[in-house]
């Protein structure tokens, strides 16, 4: 039987079919609308939600570059440590756990209490930068609300020896002082991030994209030579202790490349443990401290006079009676001499002689020379806080000031400027740009004096270290040395103070082909001796002897022991 055969059996009204049709169409329309809504309008949100189920953005850490010395020994290295932090609201620990935590973190339970009940409700550091092993034991305690975070801590194996050059980083691994600050940009690197797919167990199963590649910090090779540095630091520290001085500074420069091979300061600090640190310890006396150089400036006065043809090394200058009065002010010589040649003025360090030479020079030329050899401008080491020093405008100089400037008073320089100026004497008149970073390229100097003048002054400076000069204690066995002592009264509150001196010595060796320039400064030696020749020159000799041996510089003098003068026999320089 079929329906077709019985047409009259069921006669359904047409509207019922219509209703069904409309219902179906309506239902489809709703579905369609919903899918359009989800696919077109809310698609972004939904995709994001879906991705959040499995995709994660991971931080790719970047390590800070190492700082190495020129031999490749590490001076600063970052290594991972853990920081322990807590959410005080979630913190749940039994008294026993709290005691154990305190023991591991080396903190009193009372102090932990204070931190956990302090103002911060959602985040508090319990202890930063602890060794990973300790952090693991903290994790084993299983205290709720305690978390760990990986951080980097900087270690300085060479400690106080290199502290002033290398500097240090803060707790967040950014540079705060020294090279760490100066080269923050290239040392730091940039952390990257990448998007990955993680499975149910938290394993990374697929890399989707690298959002930003991590850039590790670049390693930095300094010009410093670890061996010379440690030698220099030991010698300087010994001298400062012996003479009960307030401080001391030393810088050694390679006369060929202008690289700073050693830079030492006393007092110093330990960059690994900076709990008790004072400003005096932190100061880099070589680069940021200014002082009146005293007689170490005389060679430049004489060099200018030679360059301008005003004198020859043999020109005789009358320094008797050891005094020179200019407008109510009298310049003294410590040892009044008679008629001296220009060479002897340097050798015996006569103030009167230097003043008389200076008065024959145009003051503009004198200032110009001081500027040319680098005084009054930062030495461009790229080091934070470089002092520029002060050279006043020539037209404001009175004759007495011009005279005193001839022997280094009324002008302020930093030790590194002074050492750099001496590279011009060591290198036949070429002033070198200095570098704290190892340079592979030979550098071009800038001519500031004629080669003949530089050689003539060099001979005078060598005579100063011979018997009869001011610095026989600067001599060393096997190499010829040249240099100049300086002893300057200290300036405090706008006036010179009695019994407070800065003893200095700047020199180079070997004289036949200078390789190393060393400048030493001892601040306020207070055991009676204060002359540069007695206090600073022995440090120079000790460092020069060791450094030339380490640099394997050929000998240029016979190997006979250096005879030191007896007490009081050496020529004393004027202050």
């Amino acid at each position, binding site marked *: 039987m079929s329906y077709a055969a019985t047409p009259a059996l069921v006669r359904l009204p047409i509207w019922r079919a219509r209703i069904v049709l409309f219902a179906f169409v309506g239902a489809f329309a709703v579905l369609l609308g919903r899918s359009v809504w989800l696919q077109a309008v809310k698609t972004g949100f939904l995709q994001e939600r879906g991705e959040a189920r499995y995709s994660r953005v991971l931080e790719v850490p970047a390590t800070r570059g190492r700082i190495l010395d020129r031999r490749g020994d590490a001076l600063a290295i970052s290594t*991972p440590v853990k920081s322990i932090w807590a959410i005080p609201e979630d913190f749940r620990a039994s008294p026993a756990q709290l005691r154990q935590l305190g023991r591991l973190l080396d903190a009193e339970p009372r102090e932990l209490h204070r931190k956990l009940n302090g103002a911060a409700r959602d985040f508090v550091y319990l202890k930063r930068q602890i060794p990973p092993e300790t952090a693991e034991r903290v994790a084993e305690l299983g205290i709720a609300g305690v978390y760990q975070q990986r951080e980097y801590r900087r*270690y300085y*194996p060479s400690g106080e020896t290199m502290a002033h050059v290398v500097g240090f980083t803060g707790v967040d691994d950014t540079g705060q002082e020294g090279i760490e600050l100066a080269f923050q940009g290239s040392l730091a690197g940039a952390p990257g991030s990448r998007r990955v797919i993680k499975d149910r167990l938290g394993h990374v*199963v697929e890399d989707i994209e690298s959002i930003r590649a991590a850039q590790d910090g670049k390693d930095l090779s300094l010009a410093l030579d670890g061996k010379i540095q*440690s*030698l220099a630091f030991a010698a300087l520290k010994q001298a400062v202790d012996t003479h009960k001085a307030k401080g001391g500074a030393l810088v050694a420069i390679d006369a060929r490349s202008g690289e700073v091979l050693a830079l030492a300061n006393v007092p110093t600090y330990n960059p690994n443990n900076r709990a008790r640190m004072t400003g005096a310890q932190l100061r880099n006396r070589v680069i940021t401290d200014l002082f009146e150089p005293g007689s170490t400036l005389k060679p430049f006065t004489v060099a200018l006079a030679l360059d301008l043809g005003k004198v020859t090394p043999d020109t005789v200058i009358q320094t008797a009676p050891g005094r020179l009065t200019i407008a109510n002010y009298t310049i003294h010589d410590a040892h009044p001499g008679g008629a001296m040649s220009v060479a002897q003025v340097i050798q015996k360090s006569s103030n009167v002689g230097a003043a008389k030479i200076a008065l024959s020079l145009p003051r503009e030329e004198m200032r110009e020379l001081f500027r040319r050899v680098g005084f009054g401008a930062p030495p461009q080491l790229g080091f934070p806080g470089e002092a520029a020093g002060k050279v006043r405008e020539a037209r404001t100089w009175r004759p007495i000031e011009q005279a005193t400037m001839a022997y280094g008073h009324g002008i302020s320089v930093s030790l590194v400027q002074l050492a750099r100026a001496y590279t011009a004497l060591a290198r036949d008149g070429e002033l070198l740009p200095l570098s704290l970073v190892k340079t592979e390229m030979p550098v071009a100097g800038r001519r500031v004096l004629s080669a003949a003048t530089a050689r003539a002054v060099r001979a005078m400076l060598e005579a100063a270290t011979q018997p009869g000069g001011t610095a026989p204690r600067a001599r060393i066995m096997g190499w010829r040395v040249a240099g100049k002592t300086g002893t300057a009264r200290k300036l405090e509150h706008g006036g010179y103070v009695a019994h407070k001196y800065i003893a200095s010595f700047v020199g180079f060796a070997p004289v036949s082909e200078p390789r190393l320039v060393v400048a030493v400064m001892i601040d306020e030696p207070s055991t009676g001796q204060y002359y540069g020749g007695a206090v600073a020159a022995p440090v120079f000799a000790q460092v020069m002897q060791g450094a030339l041996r380490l640099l394997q510089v050929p*000998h240029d003098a016979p*190997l006979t022991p250096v005879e030191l003068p007896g007490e009081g026999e050496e020529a004393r320089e004027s202050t």
Partner: protein
Amino acid sequence: MAKLNLLLLLVLLACAFGLVTSQHQGRKAFAALESETTRARELDVEYGQLQLEASTWGLHARVARIAAETLGLRAPDPRRVRVVEPATAAARP
């Protein structure tokens, strides 16, 4: 027609299995890479720590002290040192 469909179905199945297998292998290889990268980082950290240790043990002041005190070494008198000049300056490294 039915034969062609069957053939295509087989090809499709083969392709699907191939895709799954290669995906799986890719993930396995990636996991291996990941663990090696982690290891490389760990070794790098260890290298840094060892370098740190080497620098600490090799401090010049410490070496000099041990040489002088424990081993009784001292720098030779310069007069007893023979300096050998290289034949030419160019031969110097």
